[in-house]
């Protein structure tokens, strides 16, 4: 079973070739280093209460470096205090660096987008019909602009005149141009930063400066407007409580030591405090959140908030559109069913003949299927005239030069055609049509002249791999619901075949809202995809709404995520990323708290061994001198942060499995590992310090 992580990406690689590339490594490190230094600003640090306590500790030990006796008589040497101060600084630096590094990756992506935005000029059409040159930044909602071939669309808007092909690769990474024209729901909305390739468009701007899609994307990717997510805030509350508890422990320890006549110097006490408070998770918490958003954007999905990414991990129900998500966009021919008296070959041959010039996927699949059945060399004589499908005739076909007409189409349409041609409608054709419908397929009746030849079974093809993914979803306890406009019979057949848990047949947009609300009332979070304006209310109602970039502005505004590749099946990947984000957070919290056991064993005997030599009994790591023990624990506490940055960035590896399996795996790894690892780490550092003569 392939992990549902980045690896098992369902979108073909070629589609992503224009996706923002990971920024150059060296400059990323250098920039992160620089901004880590800027982050020492106490005004910024106060947002991270755990690290703020470390900062205060650092300031206190810094004061002791100047005068070791500043907080009362102590035996601590300047050298020792200097070491403690330096390691505390290092701890703070690593924490800042983790955040800066995570932000840096997003910023580099934003740079490419910003280049698109800058220096765009727009031609605004004034009321008197004249045009004036303005900067794109000056455009306001309601302004009308004209954009010619080769020019960049200055801001988000709606096409009100003209028809043109637009290159959206700057935003989507998709190189094939799209046609934009007024009137239609999806095709009339244009995005700032995209380029008109042919002809011209007149566009009514729909956003004010700084609010356009591009602006939002830049802000989001940059992490500039990042707000703490609900779960992150809650976790911070708990971390603050733990910090306060350990602050109590350390401050009161001063009193007990005074009573026991075992003096503790402030530097050592601060070292103990910093070791005990959850600095590991405190340092990496915001980096984990930023990295989660970043992982989503690497999938070419823009999350409007971290909250949305987090919520996607909690999703209990996925509502998926059938077409394009579960099945390939089109129905394909799967079988020829001749009526009595006609051979399968004949049916296949005339079906193929009728479809030779048919460019629709259905048509192509008919030709393909007949070839597979051994019907070769199908050609139409010159002068044949292809009749395209129209909503009125509900059939298509070919008029041969000899006057013969071949038609394929809906049963009633062909019935009418055959009757017009003077033929009769065989009762068996009706049975075949029924049979196909019962199996969830679409029947196409084929007739040549007055003769009905048989029925083509058009079938929905489930996208490869979807069945397995739905099974994985079920393992994780997520229900999948297929939403389709098909009738209940067709829907149930496809639902069974694809392995989804439930389906909504003959779905109207308001049905989606109803279903979403129903599941939400059961306490479940619901995710869905959509692209049309009529999807917008449901997208807004859903806890995770993924809009297709090809969709309308209304859909995109209502959603909290936008898929730039317009691939609805990505919803499943987004769920995995959300889960991974939460797992990473929990794993590092558990690790951080579990670390405390070893640190107690390192520091408590060290602190009291001078006053109470028998305490050496608890020095189970045999760390040698007190200084060595305290410094080893403190160094371990600091270096574990950069060591865990890669894990925070990549996220804990996530495979779909049940909650209990996940828990046992992660408790073993991060709980038990968190207890054992520091014993080993501290001992190794202690041996290293011995070599340095400390």
């Amino acid at each position: 079973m392939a992990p549902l992580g980045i690896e098992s990406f369902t979108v073909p690689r070629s589609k992503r070739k224009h996706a923002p590339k990971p920024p150059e490594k060296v400059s990323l490190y250098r920039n992160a280093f620089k901004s880590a230094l800027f982050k020492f600003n106490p005004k910024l640090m106060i947002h991270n209460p755990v690290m703020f306590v470390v900062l205060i500790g650092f300031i206190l030990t810094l004061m002791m470096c100047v005068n070791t006796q500043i907080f009362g008589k102590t035996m601590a040497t300047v050298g020792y205090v200097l070491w403690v101060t330096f390691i505390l600084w290092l701890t703070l630096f690593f924490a800042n660096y983790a955040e800066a590094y995570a932000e840096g990756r997003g910023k580099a992506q934003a740079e490419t987008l910003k280049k698109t935005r800058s220096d765009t000029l727009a031609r605004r059409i004034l009321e008197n019909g004249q045009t004036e040159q303005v900067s794109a930044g000056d455009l306001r909602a309601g302004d009308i602009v004209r954009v010619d071939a080769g020019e960049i669309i200055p801001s988000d808007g709606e096409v009100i005149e003209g028809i043109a092909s637009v290159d959206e690769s700057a935003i989507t990474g998709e190189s094939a141009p799209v046609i934009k024209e007024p009137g239609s729901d999806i095709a009339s909305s244009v995005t700032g930063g995209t380029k008109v390739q042919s002809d011209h468009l007149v566009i009514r701007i729909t956003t004010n400066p700084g609010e356009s899609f591009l602006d939002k994307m830049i802000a989001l990717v940059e992490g500039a407007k990042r707000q703490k997510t609900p779960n992150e805030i809650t976790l911070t509350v708990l971390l603050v409580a733990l910090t306060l508890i350990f602050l109590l422990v350390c401050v009161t320890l001063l009193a007990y030591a005074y009573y026991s006549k075992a003096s503790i110097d402030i530097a050592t006490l601060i070292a103990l405090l910093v070791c005990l408070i959850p600095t590991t998770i405190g340092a990496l918490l915001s980096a984990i959140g930023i990295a989660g958003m970043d992982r989503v954007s690497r999938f070419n999905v823009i999350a409007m908030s971290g909250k949305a990414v987090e919520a996607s991990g909690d999703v209990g129900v996925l509502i998926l559109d059938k077409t394009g998500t579960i099945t390939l966009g089109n129905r394909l021919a799967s079988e020829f069913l001749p009526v009595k008296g006609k051979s399968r070959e004949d049916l296949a041959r005339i079906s193929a003949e009728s479809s030779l010039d048919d460019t629709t996927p259905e048509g192509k699949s008919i030709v393909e299927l007949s070839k597979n059945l051994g019907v070769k060399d199908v050609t139409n004589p010159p002068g044949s005239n292809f009749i395209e499908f129209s909503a009125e005739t509900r059939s298509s076909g070919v008029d041969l030069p000899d006057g013969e007409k071949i038609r394929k189409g809906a049963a009633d349409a062909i019935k009418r055609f055959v009757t017009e041609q003077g033929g009769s409608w065989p009762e068996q054709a009706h049975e075949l049509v029924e049979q196909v419908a019962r199996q969830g397929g679409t029947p196409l009746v084929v007739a040549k002249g007055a003769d009905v030849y048989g029925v083509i079974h058009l079938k929905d093809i489930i996208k490869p791999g979807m069945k397995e993914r739905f099974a994985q979803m079920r393992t994780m306890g997520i229900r999948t619901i297929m939403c389709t406009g098909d009738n209940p019979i067709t829907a149930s057949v496809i639902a069974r075949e694809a392995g989804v848990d439930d389906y909504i047949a003959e779905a109207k947009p308001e049905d989606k809202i109803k279903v979403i609300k129903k599941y939400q009332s059961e306490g479940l979070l619901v995710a869905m995809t959509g692209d049309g304006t009529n999807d917008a209310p449901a997208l807004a109602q859903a806890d995770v709404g993924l809009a297709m970039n090809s969709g309308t502005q209304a859909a995109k505004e209502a959603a909290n995520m936008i898929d730039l590749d317009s691939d609805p099946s990505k919803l499943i990947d987004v769920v995995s990323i959300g889960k991974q984000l939460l797992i990473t957070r929990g794993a590092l919290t558990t690790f951080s708290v579990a670390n405390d056991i070893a640190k107690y064993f390192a520091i408590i005997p060290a602190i009291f061994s001078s006053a109470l030599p028998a305490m050496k009994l608890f020095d189970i790591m045999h760390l040698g001198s007190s200084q060595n023990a305290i410094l080893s624990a403190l160094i371990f506490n600091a270096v574990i942060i950069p060591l865990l940055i890669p894990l925070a960035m990549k996220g804990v590896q996530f495979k779909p499995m049940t909650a209990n399996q996940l828990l046992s795996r992660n408790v073993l790894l991060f709980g038990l590992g968190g207890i054992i690892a520091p014993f080993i780490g501290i001992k190794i550092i202690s041996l290293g310090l011995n070599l340095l003569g400390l």
Partner: protein
Amino acid sequence: MPKKNAFWLVLIILFALGFLPHWGIVFLFIAAGLLITVFGGRYIANVFSGQRTLLTPLFQPLESVFLRVSGITDSNSMNWIQYGQALLLVNILCGLFSAMILSLQGDLPLNPMHFQGMSPWLMFNTICSFITNTNWQSYSGEQTLSNLSQMLALTFMMLIGAISGLCVCIAFLRGMTNKALGHFYQDFVRAFLYVFLPVLVIGSLFFVSQGVPQTLHQQVTVTTIEGAKQQIAMGPVASLLTIKQFGTNGGGFFNANSAHPYENPNAMTNFIEILMELAIPMALVRTFGLWLADKKQGWMIWGAMMLLFLLSFGVGTCFEQIGNTMFNHVHPVPIDQALSPLQSGGNMEGKEIRFGIIPSLLFTTATTATSTGAVNNMHDSLTPIGGLVPLWNMMLNLIFGGVGVGLMGFLLYGIIAVFITGLMVGRTPEIFGKKLEKPEIILASLAILIHPLIILVPTAIAAMSHMGLSAINNLGPHGLSEILYAYTSAAANNGSAFAGLNANTTWYNISIGIVILLGRYISIIALLAIAGSLLGKTKVEPGPGTLQTNTLLFITVWVGVILVVGALTFVPALALGPIAEQLAMMAGNTF
């Protein structure tokens, strides 16, 4: 084998093991605990969900008269604020009433010894202590209180305190199991009629049958064999003793508490007293499992608690049996501390010969694991590690725990454990189908934080100040243990004492009184609020993506969080107190 048969088989094996010498009592204890849990848990669940019980025909008329008068119906459940207010109101009124009795006892009847009213700060301390189920006693009962005070003030407050604890836990459990919180006054009446009254009547009669006095004579004067006149204090002991044990109160009639022959005459009363302390706390765990419709969850918690209990008991007993290592080096002949048919060996200082080491330690473990605080031996005289055991139990305060509040404390750590590790399954953490979000975690953090705060800070102040140090009896680490013990006992609403501390000083009376109040009400109200908040959320039916809290793995994590978050906090203080003392003793140092 069907589960039922397996249960009885285990029970029979445990009873059989009960015939073993020395340790047999431990197996008997576990067997009895299982029986109480199974039947008591079901009984309490039935009582508080209004279902018919054995005693319904007897008390139904009384209950319905009360309900009709006060206009309560099953449908009008209180919200957590109303429930908390009602609880506080009842506690305050009862406290004020008792304060009146205690201060005026000199002018009230049933005062054959003509004791005067209590001094104000001692009274403040006593009221705080008794209404909160703590029963810390800065006074000695037979020399301070009239019979009227013992009955109308103390026994009364002990009953109110215990019923309050049971009610608040019932409301909390209802909230956690997605039921309306219920009505405080209805719960109160039911707790009194169906749970306390029958046990108190039968229990008192049992103790009287074993020789515990129940009389309004406060003293008898006897002539001893040597011809001297001796005054022996007596009084309505049996009734107080029963509620003292069953309500996990612990405030003794006599200063010597359950070490006094009139409060604990023999080995059987000792065993029954231990079981009475644990009866409600054990049963409630099963009540919870039944209400959650997840009996396994209940038994998992019960098992974890029992394991922690046996761990404490085992460590304590071992160190007591080893005794004082310095005696092994006495010249010219070392003192014999070995266990033999003629002596129980080990450290017998402060213990009663009629009990011996194992029953004493079982009592000590039970009384501090629950918030009882009655003692049948002097904890101050335990070996340092033996003394660490009661301290440790009170610092955790959730190994079965006091009536009601113990289980609440255990579930509080469940919330924290779910929040920390629950994220590792990739979902916002849920407990019993409800999402844990900011409000719950703020409240849980508060409840977790308050316990170390009110133990460590006052101990630190006392350890550095004259007012704190002047009251201690011993130098060195033992003195620190005495102070630490006093505040831990107060914070855990336990009430037992390291007798070395002279706690009847203004500083200790006031500070301990305040610690008792904070220790009781802040966590109760915070947990009630959590229940209320969770009740407002939609319950999500469990599925494969749900973290199961009733597995062996999760209960291990749960206990792990209790130990790392709850216990490690106290390690530095313990290191400088009992651990330092034990190490010093082993090294032959005295202070």
